[in-house]
């Protein structure tokens, strides 16, 4: 019975509305007070049923909920034969919670979409060697699974046989399909776009990367900040206090009308829902835009950040050194580049890779007598000629003449933050190459936008030499740059800033920077959701997309502001209602309930604006208008 009534809540709301309209038609259309009273009494009784059931359930577990206040108020109104108010208040309360439910669904939709991407079933190999469909919960580590074209990979695993292309957008944000074959790692929640593969399950359920991302986002949307916990404690005592207040008013004035009005006006609707609804909309927006935020405390902290520290390699730069500048001094360049490529081909030094990539296809020659000079480079014999590849020290050791023009080039290359690779053939300098890690495209604009959003200091900390770090800092317009930093130096620097009272964020790649990520007020990992990053950081920029950082900061600022607006709306409405009750004669239960429900919808709609928050172009001011 109870279940039936609760399930029929929407129908009850509709019937109650119809009866109210009928009643008013009876009164003003047919001038019939009997029809009016009867319709409204019936509307009240069926309308209050679901509310009263929930009130009873609440009292049974010792909670004074809003339902309790409303039920008592409506019964009071019935007793003093104010059927008009009892019916309308009941209807407004029901209709309000219907709208609340509908609109809340919208604010949660982004996160729902994410969790719905979780795989539900898998084709598991049974003892007979055949594949049968099972619930993904029934898959254990070590099971062999079959995945067909178009299906979701059910678990994290390794490909045993077959090959295909997988769209890993749900994990990395990158929608270009990745080729997978025997031995490749595959991730739960990604989609096999073509081919058929068999995989062995390595991690299942919540242990998969995707499972962890969902877990993180789900926990985040319900995590509570200090302010929210305060509101929770407050409302725990607030609602009973309203009940007591209503009772006192009745005791002293014997005015039932006034007492029940107090009960309705005191309902704490918008206050309790205001902050969680902003939180879920903000975190949902992030999840949709490649920014995973770990909860409302993170939102508050990040929105107030003073200083952002950046790791250099892999964060500000791509992490893949390339030849940025070169100068030729000799005549036959094709021949020299052929020699250079042949020598570098033997080496696995990162600079050698950059050189080879730059030269591209060429005529390789046979290399004999390779000698590696520690801290200098390589000396080799190619087609009988002596080829030296390395730094300035190696050239000096080889007595290669570096004339005025070369010296100037060296100086310029170094100032630009290059590592230098010189090539001499038979003691004559032929080529100078400047190799540096490329700065991520768009980083400069992103950093400027961060400044516009109010970040005071942008600092780079790097293990590289000071010259390289200074060059990067100069090019990007960073406020400070520190080189020669080991991971422990970075965390020491961070602690020093914190002890000066600054709120510090650290942006790193999540693996070697985990101490700093954990220590920072806001640890921001650039990554593809590796285990370490998920655990130690507060914000994760999916797919290492640096531009997401400005989105993240703008979003947390908007979300924090949105929460404050909602608190102001909620508190303001209660204050206005109570003042109106004390100092005016137009306030009654119906208006109180109407305003109360409207304020709930107001905070939900306000929060919904966060769902469409987007930084427009490169213009930081667009975010400010929000």
């Amino acid at each position, binding site marked *: 019975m109870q279940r039936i009534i609760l399930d029929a809540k929407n129908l009850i709301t509709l019937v109650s509305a119809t009866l109210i309209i009928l009643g008013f038609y009876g009164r003003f259309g047919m001038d019939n007070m009997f029809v009016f009273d009867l319709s409204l009494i019936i509307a009240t009784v069926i309308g209050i049923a679901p509310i009263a059931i929930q009130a009873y359930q609440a009292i049974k*577990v010792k909670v004074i909920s809003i339902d309790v206040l409303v039920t008592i108020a409506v019964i009071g109104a019935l007793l003093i034969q104010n059927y008009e108010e009892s019916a309308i208040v009941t209807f407004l309360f029901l209709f309000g919670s219907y709208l609340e439910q509908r609109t809340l669904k919208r604010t949660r939709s982004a996160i729902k979409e994410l969790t719905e991407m979780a795989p539900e079933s898998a084709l598991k190999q049974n003892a007979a060697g055949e594949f049968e469909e099972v619930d993904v919960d029934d898959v254990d580590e070590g099971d062999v699974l079959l995945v067909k074209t178009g299906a979701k990979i059910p678990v994290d695993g390794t490909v045993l046989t077959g090959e295909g292309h997988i769209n890993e957008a749900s994990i990395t944000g990158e929608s270009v399909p990745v080729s997978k074959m025997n031995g490749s790692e595959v991730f739960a929640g990604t989609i096999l776009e073509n081919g058929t593969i068999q995989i062995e399950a390595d991690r299942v359920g919540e242990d998969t990367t995707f499972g962890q991302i969902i877990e993180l986002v*789900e926990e985040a*949307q319900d995590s509570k900040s200090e302010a929210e916990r305060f509101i929770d404690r407050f409302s725990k005592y607030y609602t009973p206090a309203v009940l007591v207040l209503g009772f006192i008013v009745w005791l002293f004035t014997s005015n039932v009308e006034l007492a029940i009005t107090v009960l309705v006006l005191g309902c704490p609707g918008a206050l309790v829902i205001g902050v969680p609804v902003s939180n879920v909309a903000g975190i949902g927006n992030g999840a949709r835009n490649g920014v995973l935020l770990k909860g409302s405390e993170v939102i508050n902290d990040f929105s107030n950040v003073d200083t952002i520290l950046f790791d250099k390699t892999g964060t500000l730069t791509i992490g893949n050194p390339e030849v940025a500048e070169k100068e030729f001094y000799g005549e036959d360049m094709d021949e020299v580049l052929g020699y250079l490529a042949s020598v570098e081909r033997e080496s696995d030094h990162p600079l050698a890779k950059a050189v080879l990539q730059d030269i591209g296809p060429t005529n390789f020659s046979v290399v004999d007598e390779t000698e590696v000079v520690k801290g200098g480079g390589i000396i080799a014999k190619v087609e009988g000629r002596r080829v030296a590849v390395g730094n300035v020290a190696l050239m000096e050791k080889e007595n290669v003449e570096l004339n005025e023009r070369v010296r100037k080039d060296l100086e310029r290359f170094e100032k630009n933050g290059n590592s230098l690779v010189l090539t001499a053939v038979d003691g004559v300098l032929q080529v100078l190459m400047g190799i540096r890690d490329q700065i991520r495209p768009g980083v400069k604009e992103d950093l400027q936008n961060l400044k516009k959003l109010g970040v005071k200091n942008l600092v780079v900390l790097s293990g590289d030499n000071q010259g390289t770090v200074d060059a990067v800092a100069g090019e990007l317009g960073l406020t400070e740059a520190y080189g020669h930093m080991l991971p422990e130096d970075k965390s020491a620097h961070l602690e020093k800033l914190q002890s000066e009272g600054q709120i510090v964020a650290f942006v790193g790649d999540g693996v070697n920077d985990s101490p700093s990520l954990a220590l920072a007020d806001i640890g921001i990992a650039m990554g593809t959701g590796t285990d370490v990053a998920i655990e130690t950081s507060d914000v994760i920029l999916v797919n290492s997309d640096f531009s997401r950082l400005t989105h993240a900061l703008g979003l947390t600022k908007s979300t924090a502001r949105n929460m404050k607006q909602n608190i102001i709306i909620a508190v303001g409405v209660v204050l206005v209602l109570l003042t109106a009750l004390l100092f005016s004669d137009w306030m009654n239960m119906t208006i109180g309930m109407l305003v109360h429900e409207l304020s709930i919808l107001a905070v939900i709609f306000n929060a919904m604006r966060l769902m469409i928050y987007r930084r427009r172009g490169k213009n930081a001011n667009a975010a400010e208008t929000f």
Partner: protein
Amino acid sequence: MQKATIQLETLSCPSCLQKIDNAVKGVDGVEKDSVKVMFNASKVKVNFDGEATTIENIENVIEKLGYPVIKSKVKAA
């Protein structure tokens, strides 16, 4: 000790939380500090002593309040 995650139908009123919270805490064998009702996720997380109570019992208490349980997962903790 067992660790349960109970998925409920969408919760829409924050005051439901307190009700569910109190009701689940009232079940014998439930570790009181572990009860966590998640409003936006519409989930209840709870640790309980498998010898003193069962997951069905906890589900029942929540359903009786008027919040239908969709599914629940229990793991040894």
